[in-house]
């Protein structure tokens, strides 16, 4: 009694190629194309993107040519050397160390830590939020208690204590330590959206189509909250540059002898530096401002690209 699909449609294997071509011609542009179009439509964001990429690449490549231990040696000849001289482009600090070199190596350290911290903490927070929000019930309850526990720990103090107790640590261990404390905001945000998203019928339709839970979480729900994820991640990145910088500023960040944006800005702790030797702290402060502004511009464009109603780029579909 049951007939097959072949009996009721005239389409056969012979038409496959022709029809796929037709379909491809009508295809909606891919996400990457839409995003690129969006950047092209927004000049400041385009500039920000280039500044950021160029800067990160420059800092990474340039720092490879700098011998850090040698750079950090005290050089009495260069005591508070003035900037814009052939030897000291950006002047030198009280130890006669070149600010320009310190800035390059420091930026590399700070940015690497921020990127690592963002990748680890956001990935963890996103997974935590997705799983907690999707399963709900007891799973959610248990996972939220862990969240609550992490929230009531006085974060800054705990980090400082850990950093003080651990005898040897470097940029990688510091990133891991910080990651333990910076996933909660993301997880809460993702959880609340996942709770709402899980109630939608397309999730039910996936279940009745026989798709497994993990696949539903990461292949069905996650793409639908991608705009939230992108915006949250870019903002976290901007914020995370501040985390390491702040700790180093306080003197609990990277170990002694490792330059970072925070240690450079800490030069401003000395009132004499603020007025007399502005070049010791100003470039680092300016750099942080420029970086954070660029990232927030880029974040805005990404948000627009993921939301069809807000797009400014040429409509291609």
């Amino acid at each position: 009694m049951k007939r097959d699909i072949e009996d009721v449609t005239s389409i056969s294997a012979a038409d496959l190629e022709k029809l796929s071509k037709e379909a491809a011609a009508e295809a909606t542009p891919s996400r990457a194309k839409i995003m690129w179009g969006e950047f092209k439509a927004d000049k400041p964001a385009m500039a920000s993107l280039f500044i950021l990429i160029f800067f990160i690449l420059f800092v990474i490549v340039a720092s490879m040519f700098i011998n850090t231990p040698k750079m950090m040696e005290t050089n009495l000849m260069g005591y508070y050397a003035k900037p814009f001289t052939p030897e000291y482009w950006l002047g030198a600090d009280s130890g006669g160390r070149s600010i320009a070199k310190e800035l390059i190596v420091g930026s590399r350290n700070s940015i690497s830590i921020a990127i690592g911290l963002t990748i680890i903490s956001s990935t963890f927070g996103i997974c935590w939020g997705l799983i907690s929000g999707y399963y709900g019930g007891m799973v959610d309850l248990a996972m939220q208690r862990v969240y609550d526990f992490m929230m009531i720990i006085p974060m800054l103090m705990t980090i400082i204590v850990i950093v003080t107790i651990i005898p040897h640590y470097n940029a990688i261990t510091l990133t891991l330590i910080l990651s333990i404390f910076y996933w909660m905001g993301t997880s809460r945000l993702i959880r609340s959206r996942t709770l709402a998203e899980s109630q939608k019928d397309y999730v039910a339709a996936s279940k009745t189509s026989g798709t497994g839970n993990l696949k539903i979480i990461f292949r069905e729900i996650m793409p639908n909250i991608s705009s939230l994820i992108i915006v949250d991640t870019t903002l976290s990145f901007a914020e995370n540059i501040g985390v390491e910088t702040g700790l180093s500023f306080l003197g609990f960040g990277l170990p002694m002898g490792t330059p970072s944006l925070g240690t450079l800005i800490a030069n401003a702790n000395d009132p004499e530096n603020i007025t007399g030797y502005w070049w010791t702290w100003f470039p680092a402060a300016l750099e942080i401002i420029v970086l954070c502004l660029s990232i927030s511009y880029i974040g805005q464009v990404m948000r627009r690209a993921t939301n069809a109603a807000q797009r400014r780029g040429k409509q291609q579909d």
Partner: protein
Amino acid sequence: MSLIEINDLKVHYPIRGGFWNRIVDNVKAVDGVTFNIEAGETYGLVGESGSGKSTTAKAIIGLEKATSGTVMYKGKDVTKGENRRKLDYNHDVQMIFQDSLSSLNPRKRIEDVIAEPLRNFEHLDKEEEKLRVLQLLDIVGLDADALYKYPHQFSGGQRQRIGVARAVATHPKLIIADEPVSALDLSVQAQVLNFMKKIQRQFGISYLFISHDLGVVRHMCKNIAIMTRGRIVEVGTRDDIYNNPMHIYTKRLLAAIPETNVNHREEHRKHRLEIEKIYQEQQATYYDKDGMAFPLVKVSPTHSVALPPHLAKEFEQQSENEGVNV
């Protein structure tokens, strides 16, 4: 044997409250529903908004946990997850959702939407799969250029067809159609309904057709159950329900169908008002003290009604006297 047998199905949602967040009460969304669906037929489930139709559907397909009762399919109780998995239940039973927009993932292209059940149940290679999707699109009357578009680029009627294409992709034996046309205008409604009938003839599918529109149900279904407040108040063939309604709730629903014949409008209005008056007067006797419908009583071999106890007794005596074996 029926294709699927729903037996005293209950779905209660707990209401939590009080100091310890204990369960203080239950919402009886579905409260003891029993019916069978035969192979190849369309079974209508009718009721007002909030009567528990969607919840019944979700419990049958396994999206909602049944509080008690059974859903028997191939001799196994498919309210249990492991039985569903063993039988590949979702290969055989699919659902068309009430809200076509929300039932299609906005981030997925139509090809991936329709191919999803194919990928899970029938492991075709890429070419075969694409061909199958194109054939399905052709069956539901959409062009091949729909393949790489996103759900928001289609009209409501087209989206509903995409939902239908997904539902028929794996050759299911039963499709649960939850108000598949409620959101559509009349001409598109007719298109989608006729199309559903067509594929039923071609593939021998059974439907559980859920609706609040008795006009549509009359067009589609041979057997009909009327549901209110989580219980079934009247079950019968199309003829029983439309020509011999016995529960006041059914009568009222029927009277509410708009009259299209202009000449009979005034008459129809009077009839409706009369029914409404009777409904208001007799409402109390047709529901028990908790506002729930009474158990079903057989009034003919095909027709059962949730009559109040005094009427039910009358019927039992009558049938005994006549010696009718019901």
